[in-house]
Structures are given as C-alpha cells and as structure tokens.
C-alpha cells in the first residue's frame, strides 16, 4: 500500500475519501436524526439529470449534478408545503424524473458516454484533481453553514414545532439544510456514485448514533468512521480488484451489522 502512495491517482483517492467522510459525517448525522434518508436518496438520484445534461452540453457532469441536486432539494422543500402532494410521493417522483432526464440527455448526446458507470457507482481511483478542489470548496461551505446555524439545525431536528414557536425561521433553515444535503451528494458522487450515496450518508451516522449521546460527538465519530470505511474499502477493492464504490458500501454495511449485533449481544449478557 505504501509504495502506492507515490501515485497521483492514489493520493487523490485518499484525499477524496477523507473529504467525503467529512461531508457524510456532519450532514449524515442530521439526515439520520431528522429521518431524511429517503429525501437524500431522492436528491442524489435526481442529480443524474445534471450528469446527463453535462454530457449533452459538454460541461463537467459534476457541475450539472450540483445544479440538479440543489434544484431537487429546493423543489422537495417547497412542493410538499405548497401543494397537496405528500413528501413521500414527491421524493419518489423527483427521484425517477431526474433519472429519466439523465437517460434522455445522455441518449441525445452524440457518441459514447465515457465514465457513465463511474458517476452511477463511483470510481474513487479516477477522481481528477479539479474535482478534489470542488469537493474541498463544497466541504468548506458545508462546515461554515453548519457552524453558523448549529443551534438552530439541532433544535429543528429535535423539535421543529417548538423551534417555530420561539421564532426560528424553520421554513428557510429547512431549505438550507436540504441544500447542504445536495452539496453532500455532490461531494460523494465521485467516491461512491449516485446510486450508492445514500448508504454512505446513512451508515456511518447510524453506527455513531448507537453509542454517542451528543450531536457534536455523533458528527465527529461518523466522520472518522466514514474515513475508515472509504480508506478500507479503497484498499480492499484495490487488493481484490473489486468495484471501489460498492466495496466501500459493503465494508460500511458489515460494520453496521457488527455494531448492531454487538449491542444486542452485550445487552442480552447484561440482562442475563
């Protein structure tokens, strides 16, 4: 592994994994405690429309994904409040409509669509340096906004109604939080791909949720876990010649299963 570190692609992969871990740890914690996993899945899949548009018009597909995921986040945040469409239905509809747009755009684009698979399922070994910079900027935005609104986001997640009563602008902050989820999706696309993003958002935070009793600790622990999972997945996929994104997710899922099993086991032993 060590001699691999001299290669640019491996350095990029590790930096990408660490940047992904920060986003999924901080925002994943809100997603898990505020029960927004399905919304995050919807935003992630809807961003495929932007990938397709990038291919069609010849700009960086990740930029397209950024625009589409932000659009999907804002739509999901407003449609359910302004119409009689349920949140559940709007998630499913935006999810599939975004994917459909992507398929149509790619179909219209001339010639073959290279790397399409890597946007869907991730390809941490081929992250270009330009995307690393983009991930760094998005991570910084996420951290600054969370630091600015930390007490409001936490209150909103615990008890939205009370927050509104004491004068917190809940409508606006909900939209901001959804936009941060959209940015997280974009940070993670290169690492695990649109289809698998939802797992990297949910799994580290769900493990941290089992044994942390404060939101800040939960964010810290899930970021560390995210880093361990992406690096371990990267190493395993390299050794066993498996798809990197899928390997990262499977490593995470196995750790979650082991954590749940361990807690079950120790509880039974305590009660015995």
């Amino acid at each position: 592994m060590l001699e691999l570190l001299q290669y640019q692609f491996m350095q990029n992969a590790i930096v990408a994994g660490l940047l992904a871990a920060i986003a999924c740890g901080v925002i994943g914690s809100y997603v898990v405690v505020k029960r927004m996993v399905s919304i995050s899945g919807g935003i992630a899949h809807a961003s495929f429309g932007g990938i397709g548009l990038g291919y069609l018009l010849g700009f960086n597909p990740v930029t397209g994904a950024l625009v589409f995921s932000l659009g999907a986040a804002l739509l999901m945040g407003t449609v359910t409040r302004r119409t009689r469409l349920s949140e559940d239905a709007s998630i499913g509809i935006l999810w599939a409509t975004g994917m459909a747009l992507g398929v149509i755009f790619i179909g219209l684009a001339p010639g073959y669509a290279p790397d399409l698979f890597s946007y869907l399922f991730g390809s941490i070994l081929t992250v270009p340096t330009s995307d690393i910079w983009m991930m760094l900027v998005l991570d910084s935005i996420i951290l600054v906004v969370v630091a600015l609104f930390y007490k409001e986001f936490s209150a909103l997640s615990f008890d939205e109604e009370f927050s509104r009563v004491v004068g917190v602008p809940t409508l606006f902050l909900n939209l901001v939080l959804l936009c941060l989820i959209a940015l997280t999706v974009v940070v993670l696309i290169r690492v695990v791909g649109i289809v698998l993003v939802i797992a990297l958002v949910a799994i580290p935070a769900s493990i941290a949720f089992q044994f942390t009793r404060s939101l800040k600790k939960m964010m810290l622990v899930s970021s560390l876990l995210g880093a361990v999972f992406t690096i371990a997945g990267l190493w395993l996929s390299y050794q066993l010649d498996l798809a990197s994104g899928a390997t990262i997710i499977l490593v995470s899922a196995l750790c979650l299963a082991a954590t749940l099993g361990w807690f079950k086991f120790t509880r039974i032993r305590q009660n015995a």
Partner: protein
Amino acid sequence: MGSIASLSNVWVNYNGFTALEDVSLSVDEQDFIGIIGPNGGGKSTLLKTILGLIEPSKGKVEILGMPPRKASRQVGYVAQFQNFDRQFPINVWEVALMGRLGHAGLLKGYSAEDRHAADEALEKVEMAGYKNRHISQLSGGQQQRVLIARALATHPKLLLLDEPASNVDSAMQKGFYELLSELNRQMAIIMVSHDISAVSEYVKKVACLNRKLYYHGTGQLTAEDLEATYQCPVELIAHGAPHRILRDHPR
C-alpha cells in the same frame, strides 16, 4: 387584571373540516384554565391557534395585545410528549437552552443571560442536578419537567400545556400538578387534558371543547356542558377537592 389572550369568534377549517367553531375565550393574568374534551375535539388545534402555528379562517386572536406569531416568543409551549424521539442525541441542558433560541437570535451563540435563564428554569422544575443527563436516561415525569423548563426559559407570560401529565406516572402526578400551581403565581396557564379528575383538583376554571367551546369563566361545569362536549350523558361526581369543578348535585 391585564388581558393575556383573547380569542373572539374564532373558526378554524382544514380541508373543509371544521376543527374550531365560533370559539371565544379570554385569559387574564393568574388564570389557570383546564380544557377538557374528547379526542379530535380541537384541543391541540386551539393551542396551536393561540401560538400562531395555525391561522384561523375567521375571527380574531390577540396575545398580549399582539398577533400570535409576534407574541409566541413570550408564550411557553409544552407539546404532547409523543412528538419526541427519546433517543435523539441531546441532553437536559441543551433542551432547556432551546427555550432561548428566539432571544439569542440567528448567527449568534447563547449569551450569559440565555444560560442564566435556562439554569433558572431547570432549578424551578428541580432538574438542575440533571443537566448532563441524556434525555433517554430520565423518567417520563423528569422528561416532562425538562420540557416545562424549556418553556419557562422563554420567560413566558402564558404557559400552554398539551396533555402534560400523560407521560408522568401516577405516583408523581401530585407533585407535578403542584409545580404547575406554583408556576401559576407568575403566569397564566392553559392546560389541555383528558384527565377530568386532575383538572378538577388543580385548575381554577374549566372549559369543555368539542369544536365549540363551553366556558363560563368559573371552576364549575354543568352536566349540560359535559353532555354537549362528549355528546353523551356524563355522570357528575363531586370531588371533595380544594377546587371543585362540578356542582353538588342531588342523588
């Protein structure tokens, strides 16, 4: 006595369903009003209308001489406990501080004054020794006290409680209601409850709500009020309690 809240001829409709029909209510300083009524009778809707969370379709609501949305920072609200995730990663201190969100404002941390208010509120409900406890480590009664502390941290002139005792085990209920009576010296209280007997002992006035509000501004209920509210004959039982909601009645 100053008027804390007044509702005049308030109607609330949702999707063609009338939740509140021509409700008028006036709340003065030192009032402790118990509101009883069947499930779906509009009890929670009434509280949310007072808080400005629900807009009435007709009628006028004035809280502390202001529209409800403006006044709601000076109204303490304790919602039904079922609304919370008890596993949420938050401790007692953080919950109490939430009451100061409106005072602290956006983009700023909690000030020394905010911390002091949260401290004081926790002391008032005798939970100051539990600041670092996670909410799941508390009993139902203690959790409810913390939520009351959060409402008190706003320094309210009016406290709204929605089924506050539903999560408090019966051995603790007496102490819980005594706490409310004590708080009532500093603020008006409206308490929604299923528990007619608890209401009868501790509140000063009683109203029955089943879309329409039956209220006479006294602590006494009539058989007619209860029948109109629950839409079935209700047997009246007089309690030998300090406050009596039901008149003595011939056998």
